[in-house]
């Protein structure tokens, strides 16, 4: 349902009411923001000297290195998670009941646990049994376990969204099950799940910030390092800069996902929609 169905075209009186309401609303928000700004200003948070720290080469390099580390963890984890996801999707679609059930249990287990707990588990428990693991790989492995399960479900939804006739036609011309999957189903399903996959990449990228907890020097950790070095007064400019970097990178990916979604919908009818819950966690 398009949202415009919910109300009639607004008449002159309604327009006036909306205008007055909007002005009141904007004034209300402005008042809250104004109080916050006044308080911050009283503490000197808008001192240009504080914000000038962002133009300093050392700070910029620190943030830049953090971004690179974040992207590196995200890309490695994404590639691995897609491989795990493909195995899980094929497993869950298998006709051998025990394979399907095993893959299903794996997905349920790793989707049901907090990502932070998985990362801490790898980081604390593996050394306890004598396996040393770097913070990078603890983070990447945690991201892979969690997102592999989510991406497996996206793959499966993509394949299941195809009309049954595709599989039946493939069997009718004598393809085996593996061939059907490889030659007929996967190539079509990829288009339908690409938007959801990219939106999951955004989630994964956001989740790399959990590396902060185990001390992986990514974007957020480097921001914290800068604040600890410079002093708490600089927390607002530095954290604002960090947030802006995250939002710019993620929003561009989200835009790409939405554009792809519209295009795929127009040409192939249907796509796998990312769920709000998967985007949240």
């Amino acid at each position, binding site marked *: 349902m398009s949202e415009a169905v*919910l109300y009639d075209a607004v008449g002159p009186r309604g327009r006036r009411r909306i205008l007055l309401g*909007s002005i009141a609303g904007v004034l209300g928000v402005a008042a809250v923001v104004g109080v916050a700004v006044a308080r911050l200003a009283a503490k000197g948070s808008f001192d240009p000297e504080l914000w000038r720290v962002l133009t300093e080469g050392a700070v910029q390099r620190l943030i830049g290195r953090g971004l690179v580390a974040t992207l590196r963890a995200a890309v490695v984890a994404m590639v691995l998670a897609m491989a795990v996801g493909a195995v899980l999707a094929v497993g869950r679609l298998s006709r051998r009941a025990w394979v399907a059930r095993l893959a299903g249990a794996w997905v349920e287990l790793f989707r049901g646990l907090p990502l932070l707990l998985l990362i801490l588990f790898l980081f*604390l428990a593996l050394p*306890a049994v004598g396996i040393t693991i770097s913070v990078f790989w603890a983070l990447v492995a945690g991201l892979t376990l969690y997102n592999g399960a989510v991406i497996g479900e996206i793959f499966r939804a993509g394949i299941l969204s195809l009309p049954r006739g595709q599989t039946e036609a493939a069997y009718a011309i004598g393809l085996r099950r593996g061939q059907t999957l490889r030659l007929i189903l996967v190539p079509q399903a990829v288009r339908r799940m690409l938007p959801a996959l990219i939106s999951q990449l955004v989630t994964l990228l956001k989740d790399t910030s959990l590396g902060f907890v185990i001390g992986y020097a990514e974007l957020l950790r480097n921001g914290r390092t800068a*604040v600890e070095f410079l002093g708490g007064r600089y927390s607002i400019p530095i954290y604002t800069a960090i*947030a802006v970097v995250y*939002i710019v990178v993620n929003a561009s990916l989200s835009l790409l996902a939405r554009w792809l979604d519209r295009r795929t919908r127009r040409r192939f009818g249907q796509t796998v929609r990312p769920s709000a819950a998967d985007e949240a966690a």
Partner: protein
Amino acid sequence: MDAVLDNLDTYREGFVTTLELSVLSSVLALVGGTLLAAMRVSPVPTLRAAGATYVELVRNTPLTVVFFFVVFVLPQLDILLPYFAFAVIALTVYHAAFFCEAVRSGINAVGVGQAEAARSIGLTFGQSLRLVVLPQAFRTVIPPLINVVIALIKNSSIAAAFGVVELTATGTRLANANGDAVIAVLVGVAVCYLVLTLPSGWLAGRLERRVAVAR
């Protein structure tokens, strides 16, 4: 194993804290998310824009960064609260955006005819949303809402890094105290989370199938 059994009380405290954190934040975020969804479908352009901006900003920000702003920047505004309250604020601010998207997708799933009929018998926007569309939307939207709650329960673990002693923090503390039983201790924590998330997930799946049949 002894490390787990000896510390059952500690586990229970962590479990209860996680539960309190999740329930409180879920309720607040659901209210906020529904209001945001109403803003996003309202006839007032400023409200629509404000709602959309909020959701876009929050959706693309990591929850950890939201925590940073709440925990380190609010004190700069002389807002000093216990860590638990900070965690509730951060979780609410973040998840309201996702509750909003879930509710909005439910609103969009209600047949066009329903809204048209509501308008044609003269209901205003508020009335048709409150009396006709939302009651139907909430039915289809319950499974996705449960899933967002599950995500919130899992995300509440991030509060562990910001001074709240909930399940995950309990786990790391016990793991540090019992170096010989790290795995058993953390598996205990994992089981606590699964006790919360798995049944909710199954419930959501069952309701989803029920709704799918009812349509």
